[in-house]
C-alpha cells in the first residue's frame, strides 16, 4: 500500500510540476525591440484619477511626439498598492522601466540589489542648471545618482486664518512659547488647536522629527542615516521637548485613532471643516485639504508658517523638514530613452504643468515663478531660505528604523512611553533589519 501511495504521489507531483512549469512560462517575454531602433518602455506612477492622471498622459504623448521611436506604456497604480507591486515586479525581473521613486531606505535597498540605473552622466545640462544640487542629494549614493526629482514638499504648519482670527490671534507664532499661547487661545475659542492623524503614525512622528531638527545638528541628523545609532543627547532632548508640548494637550480628542487623510474625521478633514485650527504636514496637504472641504474646493483661509524655533538646540531655526518626489529608471531600462524622458519631465513647461496638476512646488527653479497660492509662496520662500532641508526621518533612516521611530513617538503621545523609549525602540529596530 505504501508503495502504491508513493507512486501515486510521484505521478501527482510530476503532473503538478508540469502544470506549474507551463503556467509560468507563458507570457512575460520582454520586448525591448532594440533591433529596429524602436524602444518600448513601461512607466508606473500613482495618479489614478483627475488632473494628475491627465498630466502624465499628456506629458508622455508630448515626449513620444518628439521621440517617434519611443513608445511609453503608462500604468497608473493606486498609491497604497504601488510599492508592493513594484517590489514583486522588480524581484521577478519584470519591473517597469520608469517609476515613482519613494527614496530613502527603499531607494538604498533597490540600489544594493542592482535594480536601478545610475543616471548621473545622463542628466542634461538644462536640468543641472535649473534644479538645485541639494534637491538631487537625496538620490545620490555610491558616486551615482539614481532618480530625477520633480517636486519639493517642504513641511510646516498649515492653519485656518479664520479660526486664528476668531481666537484673537494676530500673526503667526515663531517660537514654542508663542505657539503654546496660541494653542491656549484656540482652546478657549472652542476648537481643537492641533489635528494630528496618529492612526497613521507618521503624522504624529513628524512632530518629533521637527523637534529633532531643532535639537540636533545637521551632522547628527545625516550621520544617523549611516550609523543608525541614536545615542546623541539631542535625540533625548527632542523627545523631552515633544513630551513637554504633549503635556499642554494640544491635539484633537481621540487623535490616536484619527487617520491623516481619509474622510472628514481625519486630521486634514478636521482642518478642512474648521474643527481644528492647525496641522503639521508636508506641502501635499493643500491638495488633500481641498478634497475634504464641504464643497471639495480649496480652503479659502488656508495659511502656512514654518515650525517654530525651539530654545536650547543645536539646529538652525530656519532649517526645514522636506520631502522630494522623483522618478527612477530600472537597471534593465533602455538608458538613452529612459534618461531622455527623465530630462524631459523636468523641463520648464512640463514642470509648470506638474504644478498645475498636483498643486506641488516644482523643482525647476524657472518654473517656480508660476506658483500663485500665498501659502505655497510662503512655504517656497522659507524653503529657499533654509540652510538645511532634511528628508523626513522615516524615509532617511529606512522603512525599518523609520517605522519603529514612528510608532514609538505615538506611544509617547498616548502616554505609554517616554522620551527615552523613542531612542531605545529606534536602536532596537536596527537589529531586526
Amino acid at each position, binding site marked *: *500500500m505504501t508503495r*502504491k*501511495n508513493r*507512486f*501515486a*504521489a510521484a*505521478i*501527482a*507531483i510530476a*503532473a*503538478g510540476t508540469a*502544470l*506549474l512549469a507551463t503556467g509560468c512560462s507563458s507570457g512575460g517575454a520582454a520586448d525591448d525591440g532594440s533591433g529596429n531602433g524602436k524602444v518600448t518602455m513601461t512607466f508606473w506612477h500613482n495618479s489614478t484619477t483627475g488632473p494628475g492622471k491627465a498630466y502624465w498622459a499628456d506629458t508622455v504623448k508630448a515626449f513620444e511626439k518628439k521621440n517617434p521611436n519611443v513608445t511609453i506604456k503608462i500604468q497608473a497604480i493606486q498609491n497604497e498598492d504601488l510599492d508592493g507591486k513594484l*517590489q514583486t515586479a*522588480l*524581484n521577478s525581473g519584470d519591473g517597469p522601466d520608469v517609476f515613482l521613486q519613494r527614496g530613502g*531606505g*527603499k531607494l538604498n*535597498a*533597490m540600489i*544594493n*540589489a*542592482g*535594480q536601478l540605473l545610475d543616471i548621473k552622466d545622463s542628466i542634461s545640462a538644462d536640468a543641472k542648471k535649473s534644479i538645485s544640487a541639494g534637491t538631487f542629494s537625496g538620490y545620490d549614493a555610491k558616486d551615482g545618482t539614481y532618480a530625477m526629482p520633480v517636486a519639493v514638499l517642504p513641511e510646516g504648519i498649515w492653519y485656518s486664518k479664520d479660526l486664528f482670527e476668531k481666537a484673537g490671534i494676530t500673526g503667526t507664532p515663531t517660537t514654542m512659547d508663542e505657539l503654546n499661547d496660541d494653542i491656549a487661545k484656540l482652546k478657549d475659542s472652542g476648537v481643537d488647536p492641533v489635528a494630528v492623524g*496618529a*492612526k*497613521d*503614525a507618521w503624522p504624529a512622528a513628524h512632530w518629533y522629527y521637527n523637534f529633532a531638527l531643532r535639537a540636533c545638528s545637521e551632522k547628527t541628523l545625516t550621520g544617523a542615516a549611516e550609523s543608525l545609532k541614536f545615542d546623541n543627547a539631542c535625540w533625548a532632548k527632542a523627545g523631552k521637548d515633544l513630551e513637554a508640548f504633549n503635556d499642554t494637550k494640544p491635539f484633537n*480628542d*481621540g*487623535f*490616536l*485613532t484619527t*487617520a491623516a487623510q481619509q474622510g472628514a*474625521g481625519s486630521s486634514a478633514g478636521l482642518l478642512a471643516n474648521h474643527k481644528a485650527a492647525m496641522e503639521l504636514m508636508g506641502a501635499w496637504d493643500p491638495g488633500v485639504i481641498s478634497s475634504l472641504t464641504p464643497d471639495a474646493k480649496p480652503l479659502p483661509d488656508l495659511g502656512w508658517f514654518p515650525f517654530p524655533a525651539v530654545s536650547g538646540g543645536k539646529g538652525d531655526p530656519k532649517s526645514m523638514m522636506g520631502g522630494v518626489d522623483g522618478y527612477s529608471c530600472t537597471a534593465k531600462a533602455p538608458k538613452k530613452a529612459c534618461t531622455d524622458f527623465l530630462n524631459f519631465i523636468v523641463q520648464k513647461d512640463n514642470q509648470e504643468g506638474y504644478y498645475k496638476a498636483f498643486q506641488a512646488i516644482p523643482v525647476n527653479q524657472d518654473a517656480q515663478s508660476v506658483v500663485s497660492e500665498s501659502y505655497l509662496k510662503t512655504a517656497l520662500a522659507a524653503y529657499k531660505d533654509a540652510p538645511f532641508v532634511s528628508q523626513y526621518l522615516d524615509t532617511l533612516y*529606512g*522603512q*525599518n528604523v523609520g*517605522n*519603529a521611530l*514612528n*510608532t514609538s513617538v*505615538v*506611544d509617547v503621545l*498616548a*502616554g*505609554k512611553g517616554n522620551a527615552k523609549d523613542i531612542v531605545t525602540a529606534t536602536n*532596537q*529596530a536596527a*537589529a*531586526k*533589519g
Partner: protein
Amino acid sequence: MTLDTSLGTDPATGSDRGAGSTQAGRGASTAPRPAGRRPAKRLADWRQRAEIAVLAGPAVIVFVTFVILPVAMAAYYGFFKWQGYGPPTDFVGLQNYVIIFQDQAFRSVLMHNGFIVVLSLVLQGPIAIVLALLLNQKMHGRGLIRVLVFVPYVISEVIVGTGWSLLLQSNGAVNDLLQGIGLGGLRADWLSNPDIAIWTLLVIISWKYIGFAVILFLAGLQSIPEELFEAAAIDGAGYWQIQRRITLPLLGPTIRIWAFLSIIGSLQLFDLVYIIWGQYIASTAGTSTMATYMVANGRTSGNYGFGSAVAVVMFIISLAVALIYQRFVLRRDTAGAITEGKK
C-alpha cells in the same frame, strides 16, 4: 454540521487517511487471485494508480503549492536578514528568533492573544449556551431572533471593523448616545485609551462571533433525542436539572469543537484589529496580536526575513495548541474520523 466542521479543520489528514483506508480495503479483497492472471491484475493496479493520481492530484497540488511551499519558504527566509529586494544573501542563522523572544513587544502580543483566547471562551461560551437554550424553546419570533443573532457573523470583518470604529470614535455615535441619555459620565475613548481598548475589542469579537457559537449549539441541541427529556421529566427532574444533567453533557462534543475553533481563531486574530486600529497603533492601543506584530515588523517595516521568522513562530504556536487540543480534548469526539482510531 459538527462533523463537517471538524473534518473541515484538517482537510489534508482527513481526506488522505480516508482514501488510504479505502484503498487498503480494496487491495485486500483483490489480493487472492489466481497466479495465471497477472496481466489483468497489473492493469487493475495501473487503473487504480491512475485513479488516485487523477482524483488526489489537484488537491495535492493546490495544498503543496499554497500551504506546504509557503511554509517552507517562510522557514527559509526566516534565517536571513532580508529587505525583500533581490534574493536574500545575509544569512543570520537563528538571530531573528532570538530577537523575537527578547522583544518586549512580542511578549505583550502573546499576552494579548492569551487574554483574547481565554476571555473569548469565558464570555462567549456561557452566553451562547444560554441563547441557544432560549432559542430552542418554541416561541414567537424565534426564526427572526435566530437570524438576528447570526447576522453579525455573516457580515464581513471589514464592514464590522469600519462600522464599530466609526461608532466608537471619541466624537462618535456611542458617546453621543451616552451623553443624550444622561450617562455623559460614561463617555470614553473606547478605541484610543490603552486601558479600555482591548475590552472594546473583546466586546466586538464576542458580538461578531457569538452567532456562530449559537448556531453550532442549536444544531447540537436538535440532535439530542426528545425521549431523554421526556423520560427525565417523568422521573421528576426540573428544568434546570434537565439542562445540567442531560443537555450539557450531550452538548459536550459540540462545545469542544466550538472551543477549538474559537481558540484557533483567537490565536490568528488579525482582520478586526487591523481594520479598527490600522497598520501602526495596535501595539500602542494594547490590542496587537501575533498576526499584527508580524505585519507591522515584517511587511510595514520592510523586514521580510524577520517577518517570516515571526510567521514561523506563529505557525508553530498554533500547530502546537491545535495538536495538544486534538490529542487531549477532542480525542474522544473524533476517534475514527480524524485520528486513526480503534475499530
